[in-house]
């Protein structure tokens, strides 16, 4: 029993088909539960009701970064072991990641307007998210530009590798360029820096919900890509006959 068995599309389709209903149900339950619970939390003494946007903003931002990491792992798997499912999973994850980045940027802007008095500030965190979004856009554009699927997988794989290094480099380069307005990490292990438990537990639930949401979307999109690949193969066989 090894994880590489799931590189077999048939096995992947069977397993992902079994997981998918649970992932969808869990995503719906946790996201809705987390957001409703979050909505019922008391208002913050300083931020008022705007604090509640954190239950969308933080999970989306977290997923935006983690989805890129997942794409990096999937790209490496494709480049090293040539498993097609891996390349298709990276392709399927990219638009989800781009949307998560957009959600994080948009909710941040909506929160920033009443709190910081501005929709946008060239703050290191905000700027590096914008850069991350540009990398997502470039990645998606490259996938759609290359016709041959294997070449597209190779080229986007290399782009993801190089992009990861530069996204990380930009993340710390912008620290150098401008001082931040954005608060530090929302969830810290250190006691005293942590946000109150009233907000923390709904946030955990919402984060779990966003993760399950990504999992469900990823499985659906990867399954679609595999079916599309099968369809193309069938059509090619038809055309030859």
């Amino acid at each position, binding site marked *: 029993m090894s994880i590489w068995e799931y590189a077999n599309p048939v096995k992947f389709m069977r397993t992902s088909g079994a997981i998918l209903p649970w992932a969808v149900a869990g995503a719906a339950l946790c996201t809705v539960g987390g957001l409703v619970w979050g909505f019922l939390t008391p208002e913050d003494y300083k931020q008022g009701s705007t604090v509640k946007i954190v239950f969308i903003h933080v999970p989306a931002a977290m997923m935006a970064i983690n989805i890129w990491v997942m794409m990096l792992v999937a790209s490496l798997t494709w480049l090293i072991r040539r498993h097609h499912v891996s390349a298709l999973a990276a392709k399927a994850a990219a638009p989800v990641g781009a949307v998560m980045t957009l959600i994080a940027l948009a909710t941040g802007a909506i929160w920033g307007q009443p709190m910081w008095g501005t929709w946008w500030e060239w703050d290191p965190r905000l700027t590096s998210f914008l*850069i991350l979004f540009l990398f997502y*856009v470039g990645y998606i554009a490259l996938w759609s530009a290359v016709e041959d699927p294997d070449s597209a997988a190779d*080229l986007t794989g*290399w782009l993801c590798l190089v992009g990861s290094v530069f996204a990380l*480099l930009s993340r710390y380069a912008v620290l150098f*360029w401008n001082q931040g307005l954005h608060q530090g990490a929302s969830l810290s292990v250190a006691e005293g820096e942590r946000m109150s438990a009233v907000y923390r537990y709904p946030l955990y639930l919402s984060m779990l919900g966003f993760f399950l949401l990504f999992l469900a979307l990823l499985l659906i999109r990867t399954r679609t890509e595999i079916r599309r690949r099968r369809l193309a193969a069938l059509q090619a066989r038809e055309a030859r006959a």
Partner: protein
Amino acid sequence: MIALLLRDLTLATRAGGGFGLGLAFFLILCTLVPFGVGPQGGTLALIAPGILWVGALLACLLSLDRIFALDHEDGSLDLLATAPIPLEGVVAIKAAAHWLTTGLPLVVAAPLFGLLLHLPATATPWLVLSMLIGTPALSMLGAFGAAITVGLRRGGLLLSLLVLPLYIPTLIFGAEVIRRGAEGGSTVTPLAFLAGITAAVLALMPFAAAAALRVNLR
């Protein structure tokens, strides 16, 4: 390898090679900016470091698709791929030729453009130094982008979308060197970062670019 370098340089400098176009573009950009923001010396001097670096990025970007596209069209890229020198070496030489025809003229002409934008005289040496250290990275990163998009019919716009985010760290540190130089502050830290990025890019990018080229030549 030297023969290849000389060949690329000759091709670039002969008629239709586009040598100097980047420089002319840079000049136009530096002419347009005062029209946009007004001729006040103070404002211009303030934004000059950023404008000069952004101009250098764009001028470099203009000629990127030429690195491989022409050789790909007439088939000489396939010959180079089967040549005894490794493809990584070919990529490095191509990027070097690109830098010699685009980056180096920009470095040489930069003080003049700084003058146009009222850059303080104290910052001029830093302008030249930061461009000299930073622009090789631009050419090498551009060679990676050009290698990825070489097989595409309309790769030009995609190329800029892929390459420009990669230019961000170089731009940040490059402009920071000039800004600190203009204020008379210490430029050691941004210069070290700039040189570090260039060194890493020169060392590692030929491999990534050659891998992308191999995919496109399959």
